[in-house]
C-alpha cells in the first residue's frame, strides 16, 4: 500500500487533505463552543465565533445618557462617555431607533426637545442646552461601533461562583463527582470476582451464565426505571445518591464482567495451573495473580464506567431528586438550555465545565479506552 501511495504524489496529497478536512469538521463544533465561552455576552450575540479575532462593527444596544449638568459660558452642558474603557470606535450614531445611523461620529445633532448632542468616535458625548436639563428625560443614543476582540474569564466566574438560584454549576460539578466515583469503583470488585469464576472455574451452567451476561449487555436500561424506583421506595432508599450508585452498579456490571472475563480468559493457563500445583487456593490465585495481571482491563472498564456515569442524564433524572443538592451537571445543563437558551455566555461556559473532566480523562487514558473498546465489542 505504501508503495502505490508513494508512487502517486497526487493521491498522497488527496489523502492528507481529506483527512485534514475530516478532522476540521469533527473539531469545529467543539472549538466553536470553546471559543464562545471566553467571549463577552455582547460579542457572542452580535457575531459568529469564527470572527472572534477580527474587529467587529455592530450596532450596540441603546444607551441612555447620564451625567452631571454644569453651566459653562451661560450654556448648560452635560459631558460624559457612552461606555467606559471598552476600546470601541463609533462610526455612526443616532438618537432615534428608527434611524440609528443618522449621524457620523463627531457631528452635532439637534434634538427635537431643543438640545444639541455631539458624540465623538471614542464615545464621549456633549449634551448642551440653553435651559437647565434637570427635569429632562435624558435621550437615548444608538451607536454603531467597532469593537476589538475581547476575551474574558467572566463567564466561568459567573457560572461557578455567582450563579443564579438553582443553576449552580459548581455545586452540580461536586454532585456529579459524588455520583460517579462510587459508581465507578464499586462494580469493579464485584465484577472481577464473577469474571474470574466465569473464566477459570469449572462448574455446571458456566456457558449459560456467560451467554446471559452477553444478553444483558444490550438490555435497555429504560426498562428498569419504574420497577427499580418502586423497589427503592419499597426498601426505603427512595430517590437519592444510594439509589443512583446501586443503579449504576447494576447497569455497569454486564460490561464489566464481559470485559474482564474476556481478558482473564486470555491470560496464560500455565501461570494459574502452576500456582494450583503449588497449593494456592482460588482466592489466593485471584488476589495475587489474576487481579494484578488484569490491570489493563480493570483500567479500561473504570474509564468506561466513569465516562458513562459522568455523562449520564437519564439515570440521574430518574433516581436522583431535583433539589440543588442532587442536581448533576447534565441535568443542570438541560435546565439551562430550557431557561437560558439564548444566553450563550452562560451555556457555553457551563457546558465546558461539564465536559472538561471527561475530556481530560479521555486524553490521559486514551490507550486503555481504545483497548477496552476493541475487547468490548462483541466479536
Amino acid at each position, binding site marked *: 500500500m505504501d508503495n502505490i501511495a508513494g508512487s502517486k504524489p497526487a493521491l498522497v496529497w488527496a489523502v492528507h487533505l481529506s483527512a485534514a478536512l475530516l478532522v476540521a469538521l*469533527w473539531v469545529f463544533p467543539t472549538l466553536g463552543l470553546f471559543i464562545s465561552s471566553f467571549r463577552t455576552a455582547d460579542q457572542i450575540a452580535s457575531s459568529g465565533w469564527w470572527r472572534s479575532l477580527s474587529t467587529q462593527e455592530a450596532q450596540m444596544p441603546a444607551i441612555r445618557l447620564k451625567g452631571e449638568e454644569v453651566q459653562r459660558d451661560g450654556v448648560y452642558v452635560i459631558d460624559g462617555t457612552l461606555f467606559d474603557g471598552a476600546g470601541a470606535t463609533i462610526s455612526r450614531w443616532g438618537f432615534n431607533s428608527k434611524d440609528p445611523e443618522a449621524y457620523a461620529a463627531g457631528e452635532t445633532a439637534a434634538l427635537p426637545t431643543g438640545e444639541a448632542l455631539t458624540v465623538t468616535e471614542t464615545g464621549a458625548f456633549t449634551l448642551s442646552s440653553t435651559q437647565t436639563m434637570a427635569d429632562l428625560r435624558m435621550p437615548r443614543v444608538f451607536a454603531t461601533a467597532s469593537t476589538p476582540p475581547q476575551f474574558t474569564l467572566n463567564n466561568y466566574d459567573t457560572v461557578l461562583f455567582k450563579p443564579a438560584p438553582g443553576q449552580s454549576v459548581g455545586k452540580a460539578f461536586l454532585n456529579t463527582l459524588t455520583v460517579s466515583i462510587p459508581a465507578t469503583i464499586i462494580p469493579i470488585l464485584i465484577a472481577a470476582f464473577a469474571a474470574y469464576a466465569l473464566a477459570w472455574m469449572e462448574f455446571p451452567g458456566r456457558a449459560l451464565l456467560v451467554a446471559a451476561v452477553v444478553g444483558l449487555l444490550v438490555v435497555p436500561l429504560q426498562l428498569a426505571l419504574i420497577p427499580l424506583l418502586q423497589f427503592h421506595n419499597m426498601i426505603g432508599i427512595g430517590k437519592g445518591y444510594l439509589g443512583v450508585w446501586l443503579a449504576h452498579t447494576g447497569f455497569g456490571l454486564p460490561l464489566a464482567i464481559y470485559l474482564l472475563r474476556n481478558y482473564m480468559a486470555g491470560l496464560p493457563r500455565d501461570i494459574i495451573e502452576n500456582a494450583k500445583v503449588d497449593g494456592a487456593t482460588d482466592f489466593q490465585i485471584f488476589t495475587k495473580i489474576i487481579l494484578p495481571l488484569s490491570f489493563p482491563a480493570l483500567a479500561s472498564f473504570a474509564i468506561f464506567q466513569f465516562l458513562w456515569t459522568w455523562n449520564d442524564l437519564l439515570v440521574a433524572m430518574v433516581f436522583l431528586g431535583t433539589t440543588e443538592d442532587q442536581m448533576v451537571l447534565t441535568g443542570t445543563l438541560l435546565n439551562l438550555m430550557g431557561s437560558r437558551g439564548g444566553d450563550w455566555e452562560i451555556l457555553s461556559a457551563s457546558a465546558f465545565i461539564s465536559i472538561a473532566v471527561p475530556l481530560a480523562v479521555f486524553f490521559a487514558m486514551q490507550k486503555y479506552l481504545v483497548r477496552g473498546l476493541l475487547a468490548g465489542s462483541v466479536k
Partner: protein
Amino acid sequence: MHPAFQAVLTIVVGVGGCIGYFYFANLVLDKVLFPARGPQAGRNINRANMIRPWLFLLPALIALGLYLAYPVFATLWLSLHDKTGETFVGGANYAQMMTEAKFWESMRSNALWLVVVPAASTAFGLLAAQLTDRIWWGSIAKSLIFMPMAISFVGASVIWKLIYDVRPAGTDQIGILNAVYLALGGDAPQQWLQIPFWNNFFLMAVLVWIQSGFAMVILSAALRGVPEDTIEAAILDGANPFQIFFKIKVPQIMGTIIVVWTTITIVVLKVFDIVRAMTNGQWESQVLANYMYDKLFTASDWGVGSAAAMVIMALVTPILVWNVYNARKEMR
C-alpha cells in the same frame, strides 16, 4: 450528612464489604463448612470447590438479577396493568398506544434514526480509519475524531445547538449553519430544529458526530488486521487504490462492520438525551425513549410508558439473540 462524605463512606463500605464478603465467605467455606482435613478431607475439598464459584458469583448475580433481569419482567407486568399498576387491563395499553399519533411519529423517527445513524457513523468511521491509517499525523487525527465520544449527549447538544442557532434576518448569524446557508445564497435564516421531518436529520448529525470515532477505532484495528499478501496480490494484478479498498479490504472486515453497526444500532434505539435537550420531541422529532419518558414521568402513565419500553425491548431482542448466538459459538 454531606453527600461527599456519604460518597466516601459508600466507597469504604462498598469496597470493604466486597473484600470482606469474599474473604470471609472463602474462609468459612474452607475452614468451617468443609475443612480440608480429617477422614473426609478429599470429599470436602471437592465439595468446597463445587460451591466456590457460586460464592464468587453471588454478588454479581444478585445485582444483575435485580437490576436488569427482574425489571424486564416487571415492566412486562406493568405494561399489562393500568396507569398505577393496580388493575389488570390486558392489551389495552398497547391498543391505546397504537392510536396515538405521537407514538407513530416516534416509530417513524426511530426508523429513520436506525437507518441513517449506523450507516453514516460506519461510513465516516471507515473513511476516517482508512485516511488516517497511513499518514504520519494519523494518531493525532484519530484522537481528535474520537474525542466527541467523551462528551456527554447533553454537552454535545449544547455544542450543536450553537451551530443551529438562528438570529433574526438582517442581523449577523452566530450559528455557523445559518451563516453558511446565507453565504451560499439562502434567502432567510432557518429555524433548523423546527422544520418538521428534516429536523430529525439535524438531531442525527449529533449522534453521528459522537459515534463515528467509535466506529473508526474498531474498524481501524480491523483494517490493520487485513493480511498484507491479499493486498499485495491485488496490487500485482493492477488494482487501483479504490478497488483495493472496496473489493479487498472491506469484504475481509465485513464481520467487524456488522459488529460496529449493531453496537451503534443499540445506542440509537435508546437515544434520549439528544432529543430531550434539543427539541424535546416537538416539531415531529419525537423518539421512542423520550416518548416513554414523557409517558412515565410527565403523564404518570406507567401502563403506556411500560408498553413503550417493551417496544424498545422488542426492537433490541433480535440483536440480543444474535449476540448470544455468536458468543456461544465462540465459546465452543
